[in-house]
Structures are given as C-alpha cells and as structure tokens.
C-alpha cells in the first residue's frame, strides 16, 4: 500500500494515538512493578497499530467494545488519561470511581462500551449496540475488538451468527497476537488464519499486518463503510504481537515463547516502523515526532500524578450503583 494515501493529518493522528497508548501502558507497567497498581494488568504494548488504525477510521458516534486487554482501545477512542490512570490505581477519580479497574474501564460518553473481564463477553454486547443502530435507522457502526483466543468461545460464534443473520452494522476486529494467555495459538486452533472463521457466517474477511497502522486503518475504513451502507458485518484479522506477558510486565524468559521470537516481533514495532516511514517519506519531520512524544509523555506523567493524588473511594460508596433507583 502506498504511504501517500492517508492524509498527513491522518498519519499524525495514527502516530499520536499509538504513542498515547504506548507511553500510558509503559507508565502503568512501572506503577504495577512498584506495587502502586492493584489487581491484574494486561498490557497492550505491541498491538497499538490495531486500536489506533481502527479508531482513526471510526466516527465519534461509533461504538467500541473491548477485552481484558482493553486500555489501548479506550486510549485510541480518546480516553482521558487522568481518569484512566486513576481507575487502574483503584482511585475515586477514576472512570468507574474505582469500582471497575483495568478490566472494566469504559467511557460511555465516548461510546466505548467497556473492557471486559470475560473472554468473548464483549462480542454479544457489541452486536446489541449494532442492533440499536440499525433499529434507529442511523448509520452508526459498532466495533468489537477481540483476541484470537476468544474465537474459540461460544459467545464469539453466537455474536457472529446473530450479526450476520440480522445483517447488523458491526465490524469484528480480531487482534491475533498468537497467544491465548500462556498457550500458543497453534496448539489450540486447527486453522492458521482466524479470519477463516468469518466465512462460516457469510462475512467478508481480510488479513492485515497488525503492526502497520496504515494498513489497519485502510481495512477498517472498508469494513466501516460496508456496515454504514447496510451491507452487514465484516471481519478483520490483524496479525500482531504483545511484548509483555499475558499479565504483568515480564517480557523475556517465558516457558511458552522464545526470547528470539519477542525480539523478531520488536523489529517490526508499529511505532518505530511508522516513524521511520513518515520521516523518510518527508511527511512528518523527526523534530515534530519528538515534540509529540514529549507532549504525550508530559500528559502521561500528569496522569500518574493525578492518579497518585486521587483518594481511594469512600467506603460509603461500596453499595451505591448496584441498582438504578427508580424515581
């Protein structure tokens, strides 16, 4: 694909979103290492091109449903880093007032319908949002991000069957990062390309390089346009890789993958590769890229400070929001 196709504005947007995810995640990892972050931490680092490529192609009113590895999707949808960091730290000023944490982070105002602690759990919900769009007769599209592993679970297949049978405006985006937790995909999946599963639901499917934000962006534009035109769901398989362990901040020395493999994927890093391409093509200067990085780093540093300064939720909120009170 020609690098000249997207406008410079789109390229800058892709870069900005990828950097916001990367630097946010690296900061979260440091806090986790320093025991300042309770619970589980599933870092998105390595996969930034997927969330960014898709979200730049989306409209603000389009919905997203996400996974347990969901910070990247919220950042890419425009999430507020202060509220995100505070939520990850279990603080009162977090997105969910400290009640959700990493695995349930959401921003309904941004139409980000939530990360999800249950593998595959977000797919049926995204299909429901797609149903609402069609019911209302608007051309909003619902996008569901999910991993390769979730395509082994029933909820994914039921969601795909529902979306295709009812011809709903849904875009299925599979982030194939080659591992379901600590198990290589090839050991638990008899096919090489996850996208093959789309055919069973009559959905057009495409494989893209998930380390290339421009390629992801283009594929997403096609799937979104198809959904907006009332032609039903599409499926994108983005081949990508997570640098960190399933959970936590370890990268090397795993039983289930080799260090060499990690190093090979890092050579295809989505941000480094992107920066090299746009500077070599003379589209964005190295100085400008560095300035953006400094600006995002400052935003992330401020988010860490915001989270650290935020109090834990008041115990009086323990039992609020279990139900909506009727008036």
């Amino acid at each position, binding site marked *: 694909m020609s690098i000249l196709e997207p406008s410079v504005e789109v390229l800058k947007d892709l870069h900005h979103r990828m950097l916001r995810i990367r630097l946010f995640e690296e900061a979260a990892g440091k806090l986790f290492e320093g025991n300042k972050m309770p619970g589980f931490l599933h870092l998105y680092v390595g996969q930034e091109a997927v969330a960014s490529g898709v979200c730049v192609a989306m409209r603000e009113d389009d919905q997203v449903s996400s996974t347990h590895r969901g910070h990247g999707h919220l950042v890419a949808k425009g999430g507020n880093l202060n509220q995100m960091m505070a939520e990850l730290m279990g603080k009162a000023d977090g997105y969910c*007032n400290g009640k959700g944490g990493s695995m*349930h982070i959401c921003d309904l105002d941004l139409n980000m319908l*939530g990360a999800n602690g*249950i593998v595959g*759990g977000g797919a049926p*919900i995204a299909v429901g949002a797609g149903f609402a769009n069609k*019911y209302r007769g608007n051309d909003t599209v619902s996008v569901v991000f999910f991993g390769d592993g979730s395509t082994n679970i029933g909820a994914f297949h039921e969601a795909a069957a*529902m979306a295709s049978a009812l011809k709903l405006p849904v875009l299925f985006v599979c982030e194939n990062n080659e591992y379901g937790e600590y198990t290589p995909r090839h050991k638990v999946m008899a096919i090489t390309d996850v996208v093959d599963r789309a055919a069973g639901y009559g959905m057009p499917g495409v494989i893209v390089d998930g380390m290339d934000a421009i390629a992801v962006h283009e594929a997403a534009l096609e799937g979104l346009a198809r959904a907006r035109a009332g032609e039903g769901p599409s499926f994108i398989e983005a081949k990508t890789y997570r640098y960190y362990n399933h959970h936590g901040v370890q990268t090397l020395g795993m039983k289930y993958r080799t260090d060499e493999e990690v190093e090979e994927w890092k050579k295809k890093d989505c941000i480094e590769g992107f920066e090299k391409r746009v500077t070599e093509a003379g589209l964005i200067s190295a100085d400008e890229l560095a300035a953006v990085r400094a600006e995002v780093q400052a935003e992330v540093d401020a988010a860490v400070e915001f989270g650290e300064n935020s109090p834990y939720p008041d115990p009086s909120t323990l039992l609020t929001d*279990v139900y909506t009170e009727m008036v």
Partner: protein
Amino acid sequence: MTATETATENAETARELTYVGAFNEGIKQLMREDEDIFVAGEDVGIQGGVFGSFSGLADEFGERRAVDTPIAEQAIVGLGIGAAVAGLRPVVDLMFMDFIMVAMDQIANQAAKLKYMFGGKAELPLTITTNGGAGLSAAAQHSQSLEAFLCHVPGLKVVMPSSPHDLKGLLVACVRDNNPTILVKNKAMLGVTGPVPEELYEIPLGVGAKVREGTDVTIVAYSRMVSESMKAAERLADEGINCEIIDPRTVQPLDTDIIVESAKKTNRVVVVHEAVRFGGLGAEIAAQVQEEAFDYLDAPVARVAAPFSPIPFSPGLEGHYVPNAKRIAAGIRETLGRPAPGA
C-alpha cells in the same frame, strides 16, 4: 400498593384473561406506548412465541420490533444488553428458564454487573422473559425453577407472578425499570384465567401482597405455589386452621417486611416453592425471619419444596416431585403440631 388494591382500583375495566393473554396484552400496550421497546428471541416473530406470549406482535409492529433470532442464548441476552446500553428498552425472551444457564455469562457477569463496574454510568433497562416451572412432563431440562441462582447475583431483579393480574402489572414494572429484570412466567399457569384490568397498570417491584388473611400460620409462596397454597388453606380451614398467605411477587428484591410482619402476627411460617429445597429461596426467607422475628416464632420455619433431584419425566414421578396442596397442607399441620385428619 397491594395486588388487592390495584385490582379494586381497576375493577371496572377488569375482564377475564388467561395468564399468557395478560402478558400478551401488556407487552402490546407497552410497545404502543414506547417506540424504544422491542422483543427479540427464538420464535417470537412470525410464530409469536412457543406459548403464544408474543402472538400478533409481528403483525402489529413488524419484524423490526418482533425479532426472530438464531438459537443463541448468549447472543440474545447480549443483544439486549448492547441495545439497552445504547438507549433502547429491550425485552429478550429465553423460551425456557432452563436456558438461562446457556446465557449465564451474559446475565450474571455482564448485565448484572455493568452498572456497578462502570461506576454507575450505565443504565440497563433490559427485561428478560422466560418460562419456568414443572408439571407438564417436560422433564429435567425444560421444567426447572432456578430463581435462587438469579437472586444470588447482585444487580438483577427477579419476578415470579402468581396470577394473570400480577403478570401484567409486573411485566409493566419490569419493562419500565432501568435495571436488568427477569420475569419468570409459570408455564403450567399459561391457561389459568383471572380478572385483568384493560388499561396499563404497574405493580411495583419489591412489594409483596397478602393474598389471604389468616391468624394461625403464614404461608410464603410465589408463582404457581400461591394457588396451590390457597387450595391447601381452604382444606385446612375445614380443620379449623386459619392460614395467612403472603406472595412476595418479586423474589429479588424481596419484600422482607411484609413476611416478617405476618410472622410476628401468626408466629409460624411455612415457605413453599417449586424449586429444590436445598439452597432455595426458602432457606433465605427462613434466615431472614429468624433474624427479624426470632422471639415471635413458636415453631421452626418450615419449607415445602421439591426434593433434591432432577425433575422426572413420567407423570407418575413428577406428581410426587412438585409440591401440591396436599403436601403443603401436610407441612402446615406438622408446623402446627396438628394430626392429619383421620389420623
């Protein structure tokens, strides 16, 4: 507001309708009132539901609002969740209560918790309708009463109507509620008739009803066990035992006050349900009564419920499985220390 009061208020417009007919009338009236309400599920469109609950909806509202779905319970509930978060007011149907277990992740991990996990930011005006209860030789996978599963999950409301009148009024409350609600019809009652006001009326969730005034013992029963308890009470009246019957109508939230108030008056409580005895609502109600009214009790709180086995197919076995008026009466005599007649 009690069932009796509601019925009295609307007595002028009440006609005899079946249980399923009351549901059908209620859902149609709700859909006429609010364009955001739709129904989705297996066979709910052209067929109108396997029990006729949704009969005529596709004709009146079109298949846009009476949506036939794949046999995919997780996706049916998920469809409702996503549509509700996006601002609609979905009614999704899981044909048999047994099938809730196929959809349990979406019900218990997603719908029930979404609001809390999101720090209160989500509204989830979702109604799940289903059909529970035994007595039709539907065997072990189409007859269960699983309300205790659902009541154990914070975030859900669980409703078990015992009459056509209550079914319509509680359906209206469920659909208008902004929380996920599960309305469980009893499928052995679908053809039962009773007075139902013509207009839309709402019976508030979490408010029980005293369906029989009495002095000697309180029977707590819901769904079909209310009518069986009424039969038992009539038999026992001939023996000089005066039963009070409380129908909580909603089992989550549970109207503990009305039960405790009655227990303090009669000093004896027997809980009746179709679900198996072990870990059932009876255990919860017994615990709450002893917490709130221990000093008033003249006997341990008793339970009349199904034995701890899957539900058998044969009428010859199922008849011994589901509690009936005879077993309820026996349980009450035991609690009162009265001998069986002729004993």
